[in-house]
């Protein structure tokens, strides 16, 4: 078996050339916050491509139709970026709560999505914001829907040799979004449960609502019953009580028989209230 070769393309074009010319298996690394620490091992052979040096893959830009976030943008950058905070606050909030300061300084948007952890903070936020992804492989660039890369069954939908190069959130966003997380401690914790919401408002009433939960299934789980408890209704006590009940029912349906059910069924109510509190 041949040894592992490494490359660090300086931009998208160099990456495209590299992929087109690569003969053997290709693996990718960006921040290294998963790949460089146990228990995951680096590949032993083929080509390892470091995406973190490609400057244009870290760009964040806004045009009429979309907010485009380069895959190599770090979570620390996402957390403070003014346009992400303004247009997609759920993503900024999720990025700010992911890992620790040190991890956020290294970890990238693309790396988080490619890792496809069931407890990811980033993917529920992206799901709530109807994100889709641009990928690059030797076959060229492709626009892939969220479900194609983050299938409901879990794992990553990336093909071998396919790298995420950007996430794209369609604009305009008609609603306000927010993200909340429940971990075993305040910081540096893997989510036990998280929620990402985007809600439109019609005066004092909720309009359309998109709500996703993380860490209760292999991939972000859309909570349609809880969405229905809010959609089109006045933001009053009766609605909130229905929302509480719907959230508990969603958790019961998602993790029946799991040891953590009793706890999460109660805690999700608190998390749901925190979530709505962030929209206010």
């Amino acid at each position, binding site marked *: 078996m041949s040894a592992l070769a490494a490359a660090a393309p300086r931009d998208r074009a160099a990456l495209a050339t590299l992929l087109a010319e690569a003969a053997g298996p290709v693996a990718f690394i960006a921040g290294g916050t998963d790949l460089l620490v*146990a228990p995951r091992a680096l590949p032993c052979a083929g080509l390892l491509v470091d995406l973190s040096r490609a400057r244009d893959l870290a760009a964040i830009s806004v045009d009429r139709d979309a907010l485009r976030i380069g895959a190599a943008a770090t979570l620390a950058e996402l957390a403070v970026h003014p346009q992400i905070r303004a247009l997609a606050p759920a993503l900024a909030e999720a990025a700010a709560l992911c890992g620790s300061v040190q991890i956020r300084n290294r970890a990238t948007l693309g790396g988080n999505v490619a890792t496809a952890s069931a407890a990811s903070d980033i993917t529920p936020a992206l799901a709530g914001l109807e994100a889709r992804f641009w990928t690059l492989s030797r076959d060229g660039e492709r626009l892939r829907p969220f479900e194609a890369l983050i299938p409901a069954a879990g794992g990553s939908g990336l093909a071998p040799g396919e790298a995420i190069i950007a996430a794209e959130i369609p604009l305009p966003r008609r609603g306000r979004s927010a993200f909340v997380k*429940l971990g*075993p*401690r*305040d*910081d*540096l*914790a*893997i989510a036990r449960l998280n929620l990402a919401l985007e809600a439109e408002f019609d005066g004092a009433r909720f309009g359309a609502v998109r709500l996703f939960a993380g860490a209760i299934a292999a991939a972000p789980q859309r909570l349609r019953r809880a969405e229905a408890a809010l959609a089109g209704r006045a933001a009053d006590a009766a609605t909130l009580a229905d929302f509480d009940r719907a959230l508990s029912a969603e958790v019961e349906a998602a993790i029946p028989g799991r040891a*953590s059910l*009793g*706890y999460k069924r*109660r*805690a999700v*109510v*608190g*998390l749901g*209230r925190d979530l709505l509190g962030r929209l206010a």
Partner: protein
Amino acid sequence: MNVVARRLPLLDGVEKVTGALRFAADIPVEGALCVKLALSPRPHARVAVLDARAALAAPGVVAVFWHENTPRRRYNSAIWAEGQTAPEDETMFPEIVRHVGDRVAAVVAETQDAAEAAAKLLAVAYEDLPAILDPAEAEPIAETSFAVGDVERAFASAAVVVASRVSTPKTHHVAIETHVALAAPAEGGRVTVWSPCQSVFAVQAVVAKALGIEGDRVRAIKTPIGGSFGGKAEPILEPIAAFIALQLGRAVRLVYDRRETCLATRMRSAAVADIRTGLAADGRIVARDTQILVDVGAYCTGGHWLPGSMAQRLSRLYAVPNKRYRGRAVLTNTPPTGAFRGYGTPQINAVTEINLDLAARALGLDPLWLRLRNVVRPGASEPYQGLDVGNARIRDCLILGARAFGWFRRRRGAAQRSTPRLAVGIGLAAATHINGCYPADDEASTVTLALKRDGRVELALALHDLGSGALTTLVQIAAEALGASPPAFDVTPADSDLSAYDLGTRASRTTYVCGEATRRAAEALKAEIRRAAARLMNCAADDLDGAEGALRRRWGPQQSLSFAALAEALAARGEALPAATLTHTASANPGSYAAHFAEVVVDRLTGRVKLAAYLAAHDVGRAINPMLVEGQIHGGVQIGVGFALYEDVDVDPATGRMRGDRLSRYHVANAPELPRIETLLIEKGEPSGPYGAKAVGEIATVPVAGAVVNAVNHALGADLTQLPLTPERICAWLDARDRPGRET
């Protein structure tokens, strides 16, 4: 006081923060062999077949050791001196493994990668044996009982009797530096072992015992330590590294990773206690019955001492006229336990302090007032060993601590500051801990202080600074007594070939025992220096005062002589330089005392506990270095908060596997979880301590769980007694209260 009471930075602090200090794993050892241990995946099994052929055939592999080709000699890793006896049930590589993580084999190779790759090639067949994972089903290995007064009659007379079952978890030390040992063969069939240990003489004794060689064939040298907290008190890897070095005639480097340190070293023992306290209507504790079961895990280690240690700590906090205690230690097929900051005291203290608050509630008394009514007085004699508790200033800790914290104001306002969702609670706990091993017969420390030719002073003792600042503290004591400045000292680290015997850094003894030995040795050296200087200066020794590394005449001609000039003059005359060696044997074991105060906010929906305010009041006798004392308190609180709220190694009761074997699953309290920790030092002086000082390092972690749990129970009106208070446990209690009959 010139040097004592000053906030001097750590003498080795710059080296540490600049990375100049070399820890054991960073020390380059030319040609050292690397080792990977194979650990048992079974909780109790016989290693029926171990086929090492594939591993031995792998590139770079030098040897494989397991029970068939290593000494089967049994030893106990908790001893600290040759000849000390303790139940011997550990072997380097047992034929019958007793816990998941027990040592099965060692693969020795030229590189770490080769050792790790080859370890995967070992083919091991296990024959499973029945495993005991529940301490309630296990046989005791040690039991301590004692009783005072007429307990049943006192209970019958009590206004209230409150019974609680309190349980505390097994927890990891989580030192940043994982376990490590280096060893190399030396001349004369000897072996040298370098390790970040708490006692070089313990390393010598345990290695000699495990290998069946004379102690003087083992030289143990202490390396800088990246955190211990008791975790490195017992030599674990040292015998294996020494054995391989002698066997193969080459240097050996054995470094555990985090998971191995979690699975195959030591941790805090778990405890379950049934406690009953009887109170008179005026708040006096009239009777107490404490039954505690301690799960020490797969090997005895020092577990047989724990029931007695707990009895000792239980006996010196409150004056209880009628009491009964029974402590039992049991072996289970779970990872072994050992010393951990407080050595049993955090467990027994959580038991009494949580129960006492529930008793205060039952009687409608303020918990602060209840404690003030019952705490021991200075000079009291404790009933377990009959020792004098010394200048026990627990009342000052409680009264002044409560005032500084705003106890009554916070407590009264807690309900008002609560919301339907967020419950505010205020709690406190009192605590005591020991100062050394007295009345044990080897509680002594020997210190040599010597003037060197360049005028610097050498301080030599078997010192192991665990990162607490013991080195800086002892130098401050010596500098104060000698009239020298702290940077003028060179400290020789512990080396069993060079240092006088000392039982090591344990039992909160360094400042109190080694510090007093240092003070006395410095006084003796000062007398020597003054005698020598008086001859040179042609005056009486009594006329000379020492300060800042020089001697001055008190009267008459303005004349001064620096230590350096004195040393030079003496050397020029061919005279010996002044030196003093002194052994100080402890003759008391006073208590250190503390009261901790916590305010928490409990989220009734998510069960999360936020520490909102914290104050720790400590009776330290005198703070030799207040900054380091505060640092010890901050670190002690950090460990205690984890013990109260987050940490549990979480051994599966069905399989014996540990869930908390990595830091992504085992959560300590980090800075974001901690509030600003206020400290209040009570400095009333302990007559037998150096400049009045006594211990703080261990006791700082003792009252934390009690204070935090009591605050949570106050917030919710709950009676939670199972540590840690995870959000699940808090929510389960709330669910059961909200929906009686549906949940348990």
